[in-house]
């Protein structure tokens, strides 16, 4: 946890310094609020041998400060239900919380209608699933750094498409113990955040993730834009109790230029 805080602090300071170097006077600040419909597909051997699928709403807020480079902070919250294909007796509830901080550097480009940014992100992700008031539960939490690339194509003065791809590279991974419960969980059952954020460094082979997003933006006015997003999120944990999750979320939102 201390390492995670140090990484965050380092990342924020670096991002702030680099932002200052790149002329904050011309920065555009924007706030985007969005709502989407999250389609989740899950196989978590700790929870069940059965594949789960289901959906629910997801809400997000993203703040971005764009000069030459981009500094962004985002929070997303999703909740819904998952069912197995075989039976409707096992309806699980899930919570999905993502917090991210990104800093992307613009790469020099001859084409004025295309911007390309690359950089890093510090992300905390927590996915919690439970059945029947915690009679069964599982979770996956990650904290760490991801590399991220983003391509923006201006189609017309008011239309643009942006796509980004993030791949986690150094993550603290939190998963339930071998048997789902142990004395640590029993003793700390009133502090779920403490349980979920108790992660261990994971190797690249043990934890794999991919976060792909494509956004179409229509600039309604100089201060207001309408977005349509589609995001695909893949997560895979290898080991004795494998975990796989795929989340596909079409969403729409409004961006306010501040």
């Amino acid at each position, binding site marked *: 946890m201390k390492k995670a805080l140090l990484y965050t602090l380092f990342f924020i300071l670096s991002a702030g310094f680099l932002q200052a170097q790149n002329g904050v006077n011309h920065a555009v600040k924007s706030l985007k609020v969005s709502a989407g419909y999250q389609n989740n597909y899950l196989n978590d051997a700790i929870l069940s041998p059965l594949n789960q699928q289901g959906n629910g709403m997801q809400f997000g807020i993203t703040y971005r400060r764009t000069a030459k480079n981009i500094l962004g902070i985002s929070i997303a919250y999703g909740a819904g239900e998952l069912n197995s294909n075989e039976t409707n007796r096992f309806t699980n509830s899930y919570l999905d919380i993502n917090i991210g901080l990104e800093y992307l550097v613009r790469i020099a480009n001859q084409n004025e209608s295309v911007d390309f940014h690359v950089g890093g992100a510090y992300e905390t992700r927590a996915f919690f699933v439970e059945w029947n008031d915690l009679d069964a539960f599982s979770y996956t939490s990650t904290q760490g750094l991801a590399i991220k690339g983003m391509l923006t194509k201006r189609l017309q003065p008011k239309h643009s498409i942006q796509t980004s791809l993030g791949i986690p590279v150094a993550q603290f991974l939190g998963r339930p113990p071998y048997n789902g419960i142990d004395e640590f969980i*029993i003793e700390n059952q009133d502090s779920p955040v403490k349980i979920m954020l108790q992660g261990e460094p994971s190797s690249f082979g043990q934890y794999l993730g991919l976060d792909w997003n494509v956004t179409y933006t229509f600039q309604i006015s100089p201060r207001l834009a309408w977005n349509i997003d589609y995001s695909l999120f893949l997560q895979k944990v290898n080991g004795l109790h494998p975990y796989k999750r795929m989340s596909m979320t079409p969403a729409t939102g409004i961006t306010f230029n501040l």
Partner: protein
Amino acid sequence: MTQYFHVNIEEFINSWPSNFNISKMNKNICLILVSLFWFGCEEAFLGEDAPNSPTNNFEIFWNDFDQHYSLFEVRDIDWDQLYQTYRPQVTDELSNEELWEVMTTMVEHLDDSHTALYDGSNHYKSGYTLNAQSIAEFSAELLLSRYLENINEVKSEDELWYGNVKNKNIGYLYLGSMDGYNPSVIDEIIRIFENTEAIVLDIRQNTGGDDRYSARIAQAFSDGEHEIYSVQTRNGRGYNDFDEKKIYHTQFDSNNTYNKPVIVLTDRRTISAGEIFLLHLKAFDHVTQIGDTTAGDFSTVSNMRFLPNGWRYVYSIQKFLLPNGASLDGIGHVPDVYVKNTDSTIENGKDIVMEKAMDYLYSEYGVE
């Protein structure tokens, strides 16, 4: 469904103004990417669902126990031998009732009532015959009408009530489970019992709950800090793979403790956190256990487990050991004074366990 969205995505892209500087090739790339990621890839990513057949349900069930159940060694169970015995009885032609019979018969060998199987309407617990029988050997109505007075129920807690034994200076406290919002309420009850000569602490039919709750209630009767047990949770494929021992001690608060004679009443249905409570109490010199041997099921129960046919089940995932390394799993707490009710003693209006407690307090401590 796929076709519907496919057409609409195409229509959407084609409907863009023609003066968008996007080539036909770029449009096709967009179309392929969106279609690829939107549909049909979940099965490729997750893998096929587990088949819902009797043989596969049995295999998942047996393997799950094999990899996670904690008490094969402690209870001396040859799980592989049970597979050899019961697996041949399972074919894909088996009915649900027949599969239920095979699986429950197999886990009956564990004699562990923390192993339970549910099919949505039926509920089975391993080794539960004596526990179930003891339900008829206890009557709260009989206690209230014949043996107790000044009864108060503590609403914030689950099945906690207290009062006095009729015509005696003896406190009575009943705990039907180890769950509630405020176990420290026990300190107030002990203050109320301050001037009694003894307490009867009745945990017959105690269905367990939270071990921390047990520890807090037991603190009110503590005479010091004693090492009482250790817990280990199975953490690997081997039957002897367990995590580090977590050692537990009794808690002690010299300002809030009752150290006059305490008689704790038990029966076969005193189980789990109820038995953890006894691990605490039996470390104290002024506590005597009277009644029947307890269930002998100490482990925390696993998360609910699921089968493709809609059944669900739980099992033990821990082992509890006494400081000398012995386990009471499958044995239970053997009482200091053995006595048990029967259906007929209850029907005849006598709780001979309660009466034995009174006799014991008189003979051992002179409490009338």
